[in-house]
């Protein structure tokens, strides 16, 4: 049977796809043939890539019309849905992985969406900008103003980032909620990884990538 909406029907694997390094990290954490739900999937790049590289199936949730159009152009299954309103339309543990990249800080109630993601997915992968990044600290310390950077390009009054946090803040939330951190990586704005980052992630890391489950297991502190 011919199909369109799955890019699997195309034979041109996007080998030259210039995938952001943080998405490459996520790719390495997703198992073959997983079912994936991507919250705030944007233009569908990640799902498109995972469909080829890991033969995943799944959906993206998105509320921006331009991104939805971009997903349809790629053949990525996209559902127009405001994730701030929750995931009530998804069953418990119905996806292998629920992903949210660079959107947690824009959510009205991040702690609730995390709980929802862990209800729907067996694993959760989440990425967000680290407000404790040294440049942000320095900006606030020296200029006395809210940091503006490549990762955080907005003014305080027009930013969609209403819930910025540091890695430590995020891990505190995981600890108090009983979530287990399976893996974490930090990258800088060039999305690169190095030894210094691993030693001082909360200072040197600009973007955090976490892989968590809802298991009630002890969490090691940063």
């Amino acid at each position, binding site marked *: 049977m011919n199909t369109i909406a799955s890019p699997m*029907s195309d034979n041109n694997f996007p080998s030259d796809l210039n995938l952001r390094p943080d998405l490459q990290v996520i790719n390495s954490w997703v198992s073959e043939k997983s079912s994936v739900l991507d919250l705030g999937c944007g233009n569908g790049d990640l799902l498109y890539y995972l469909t080829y590289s890991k033969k995943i199936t799944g959906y993206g949730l998105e509320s921006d019309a331009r991104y939805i159009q971009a997903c349809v152009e790629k053949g990525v299954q996209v559902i127009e849905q405001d994730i701030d309103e929750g995931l009530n339309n*998804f069953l418990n543990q119905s996806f292998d992985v629920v992903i949210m990249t660079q959107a947690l800080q824009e959510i009205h109630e991040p702690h609730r969406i995390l709980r929802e993601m862990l209800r729907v997915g067996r694993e959760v992968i989440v990425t967000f900008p680290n407000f404790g990044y040294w440049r942000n600290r320095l900006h606030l310390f020296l200029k006395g103003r809210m940091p503006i950077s490549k990762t955080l390009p907005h003014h305080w009054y027009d930013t969609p980032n209403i819930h910025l946090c540091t890695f430590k803040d995020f891990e505190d939330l995981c600890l108090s909620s009983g979530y287990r951190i399976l893996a974490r990586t930090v990258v800088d704005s060039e999305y690169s990884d190095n030894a210094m980052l691993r030693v001082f992630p909360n200072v040197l890391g600009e973007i955090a990538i976490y892989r968590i489950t809802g298991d009630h297991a002890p969490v090691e502190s940063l």
Partner: protein
Amino acid sequence: MATSDSTLSSRNDGGSVGIIKPQTAIFNDLLKLKCGRTLDNYELIYETYGELNATASNAVLVCHALSGHHHAAGLHYASDQKPGWWDTMIGPGKPIDTRKFFVVCPNNLGGCHGSTGPSTVNLETSTPFGPNFPIITVADWVETQHRLGLYLGIHQWAAVIGGSLGGMQALQWAIDYPGEIRHSIVIASAPKLSAQNIAFNEIARQAILSDPDYHGGHYYLTHSYPRRGLTLARMLGHVTYLSDYTMREKFGRELKSGTLNFDYGAEFQIESYLRYQGETFSSFFDANTYLLMTKALDYFDPASEHNNNLCTALQKTLSQFLIISFSTDWRFSPERSEEIVNALLKNKKPVTYAAIDAPQGHDSFLLNIKRYHDLMRTYFNRINI
């Protein structure tokens, strides 16, 4: 569902399919209907646009809504001022591009535009069927459309598409013939009618049934016609196709003569508009067909055959789905489309859903709304044939 209003729609990119001659397919194979009755023979009038390819893999079935018909695109003669009801969507270079696809649009059984229906003469009695014409369901239409497909040499549709009642047919197709439809495109529709929807239909029916000229449905023989009832039914229906916003923008409280006359004439522009719409409609539409179509809407409920569980009803579908809703559609609101989307998600079926922000209400599905048409164009571009 409603006739597209030329002031609301703009010219689309792309051309016309040109002058189209409707065709008729005659069926002499017994048709068992959901109501338990049978039809020995029946005719379907239909139009086609584009060319069926050698492997018959490029066929698109367009299903019409309550007051629709087979004339979806193009013109019937050179000076024809009124193109088909979905002319903005279908044609060379249009979202459903007839340079790629072979598009088929029949008038449904029970209709009044050339397919067998209540106004057809029953050969057994030599009089029109009238109210004795069996009530047809959406599943019955799918069955007849399936036969029409086979008649045309189409064993699998690239897509079945429709808005409103037409979307219900596209959904029923995915359930009834899972292997014979690759894409089910359901626009401004619902998995079943709400009590409010049925209530509106019932008022429309009562308007017709209580018209003294209805004559129990046998008005064909009396040379009378329940014009007033059908006019009222259409006026009521038309209100549900528009949004509050559209009515306010278009008519507001504007008066025809500029002053209040303190009488019961059509004083406000909206009154005059509705009367005109109702009267025009009643001059070409058959009242018995209107009754039948509203019943088909009321009865549609594919979940009812699966313990009232829409998820179960959709379990065996094999097609991909595109579901589209419009923000100001209060007849079949986005939430109604989302019922379908959520049932598909629970089944892990391939589905894409877009909730188009549009002020024009239910009628949006007939209009050239940029985001809607861009999406349709892209989706159809990607359909492999």
